[in-house]
């Protein structure tokens, strides 16, 4: 019995916000496809309720047995556009409502998969689904939506990018009475992973098995604490080593929970996603880790380099700790969910331009950023196009989750409450990319050689 290891673990949980962020059950809905929309919606509701019946209880039992907090239990499903394609006469919103009802019934706090994969073009259900997103997100509470508009192999579908600028804005407008929260549940991806357990971008890819358990671990607070405690006087090689070791321990815990959940639910284990996902709790912040490495404030020059080190060290530590790593795996930088980022954005040290650079080396992209309500759909499309281009060229996942704050200007704030947090509205460059966006078409896939 090694007392110091035991006390270290307990300290991580008690004081450093170590937790398993989510157990996400991926459920395929391909066998629910039916030309009769009502029948399909019924089949979807029944299948989710049947498969996920014990998900929440099992999560709570494991949490109690091991003494580890498991914060969220969630569900991801096959992109609904694939199901909706079979019933053109019915609005896909009907499916969103079925998902919402099923999620409530089984007690999960989010269900992801109101999604379409259109990186190379639109299928029959895709148009209808994308057009219905604002209505679906305003009339449901637990449903999350995502659209993949580009990939390294296919290029960027600029017609989809054009559409999404408008859809994001409309979604915010339709939920203007609720802090525009609809837009916080909508992610526009490039290179979207099919096994991501984190919301709002989770969906169950068509290449996945019928049902699978994916687990997302977290722990920015633990990494920050270890740098604070042991990082003094160390060079960056040693800092990277410290982060790796810590990521290893965190991921092992996730792996244990994933295996146990998979065994108890009799569902195959998919992946552990070893992301550092911040929460608004003080201390549980990725920005504080970067500041702990020696930056005066997140957003200062040097932030991108520090984040690159962090993101890579987390992956290296985690990969060895789990039999199967997937999802987004890295460091998230959602502004409104991270106490340090909120402070940095308020003080003006962290700007949208800097965040865009950071997304080239973090695990996802521009995440949970409030922008002025008068930002035009074309500018939002421009933001999406830039972000997708970074992902496409660098063979990584990037995403945009911006929240146009209807009726508010830069400097004011939105407050979503809970894990989604709060944050200042950040200034956006207003010069118009209108003509560029209006052209539509496709940005061809980039060359995979001659990489300079």
């Amino acid at each position, binding site marked *: *019995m*090694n007392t110091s290891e*035991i006390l270290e*673990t307990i300290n991580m949980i008690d004081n450093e916000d170590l937790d398993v962020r989510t157990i996400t059950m991926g459920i395929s809905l391909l066998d629910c496809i039916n030309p009769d929309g009502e029948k399909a919606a019924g089949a979807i509701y029944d299948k989710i309720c049947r498969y996920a019946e014990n998900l929440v209880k099992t999560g709570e039992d494991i949490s*109690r*047995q*091991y003494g580890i907090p498991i914060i969220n239990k969630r569900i991801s499903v096959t992109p609904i556009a694939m199901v909706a394609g079979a019933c053109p006469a019915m609005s896909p919103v009907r499916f969103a409502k079925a998902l919402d009802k099923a999620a409530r019934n089984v007690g999960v706090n989010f269900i992801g998969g109101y999604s379409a994969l259109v990186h190379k073009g639109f299928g029959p259900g895709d148009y209808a689904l994308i057009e219905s997103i604002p209505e679906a997100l305003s009339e449901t509470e637990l449903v999350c939506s995502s659209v993949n508009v580009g990939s390294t192999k296919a290029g960027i579908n600029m017609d989809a990018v054009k559409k999404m600028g408008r859809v994001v804005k409309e979604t915010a407008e339709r939920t203007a009475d609720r802090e525009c929260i609809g837009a916080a549940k909508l992610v526009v991806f490039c290179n979207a992973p099919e096994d991501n357990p984190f919301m709002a971008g989770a969906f169950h890819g068509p290449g996945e098995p019928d049902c699978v358990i994916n687990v997302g671990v977290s722990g920015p607070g633990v990494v920050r604490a270890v740098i604070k405690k042991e990082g003094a006087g160390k060079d960056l090689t040693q800092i990277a080593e410290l982060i790796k070791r810590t990521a290893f*321990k965190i991921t*092992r815990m996730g792996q244990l929970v994933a295996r146990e959940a998979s065994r108890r639910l009799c569902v195959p284990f998919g992946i552990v996603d070893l992301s550092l996902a911040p929460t608004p709790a003080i201390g549980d912040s990725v920005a504080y880790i970067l500041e702990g490495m020696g930056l005066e404030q997140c957003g200062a020059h040097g932030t991108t380099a520090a984040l690159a080190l962090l993101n890579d060290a987390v992956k290296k530590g985690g990969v060895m700790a789990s039999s199967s790593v997937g999802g987004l795996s890295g460091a998230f930088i959602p502004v409104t969910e991270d106490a340090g980022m909120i402070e940095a954005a308020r003080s003006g040290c962290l700007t949208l331009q800097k965040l865009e650079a950071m997304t080239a080396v973090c695990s996802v992209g521009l995440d949970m950023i409030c922008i002025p309500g008068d930002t035009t759909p074309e500018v939002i499309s421009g933001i999406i196009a830039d972000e997708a281009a970074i992902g496409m060229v660098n063979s990584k996942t990037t995403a945009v989750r911006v929240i146009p704050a209807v009726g508010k200007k830069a400097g004011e704030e939105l407050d979503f409450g809970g894990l989604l947090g709060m944050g200042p509205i950040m200034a956006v460059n207003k010069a118009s990319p209108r003509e560029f966006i209006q052209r539509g078409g496709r940005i061809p896939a980039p060359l995979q050689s001659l990489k300079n």
Partner: protein
Amino acid sequence: MEKTEKAVITVIGKDMVGILAKVTALCAEKDVNVLEVTQSILQELFVMVMLVDITRATVRVADLGDILDELGEKMDLKIHVMHEDIFNSMHKI
């Protein structure tokens, strides 16, 4: 041979008379066998770590945790009960 299942009980808080006695009494009541105990006082803070065998326990780990939590609240101590798997997986390769 029957596989043994172990858990780790940790008690952290202000030192006082009878902590060990009360915790072990509860363990005995639930057929939880104490295998190892280490305790120390760090800057007036009492820290005790116990390794216990729960193979024949009459309650599950989770319930034992609840029972000891109650005791902890009464005595103003932080008591954790965790399955040993968590420490093995986090600290051993």
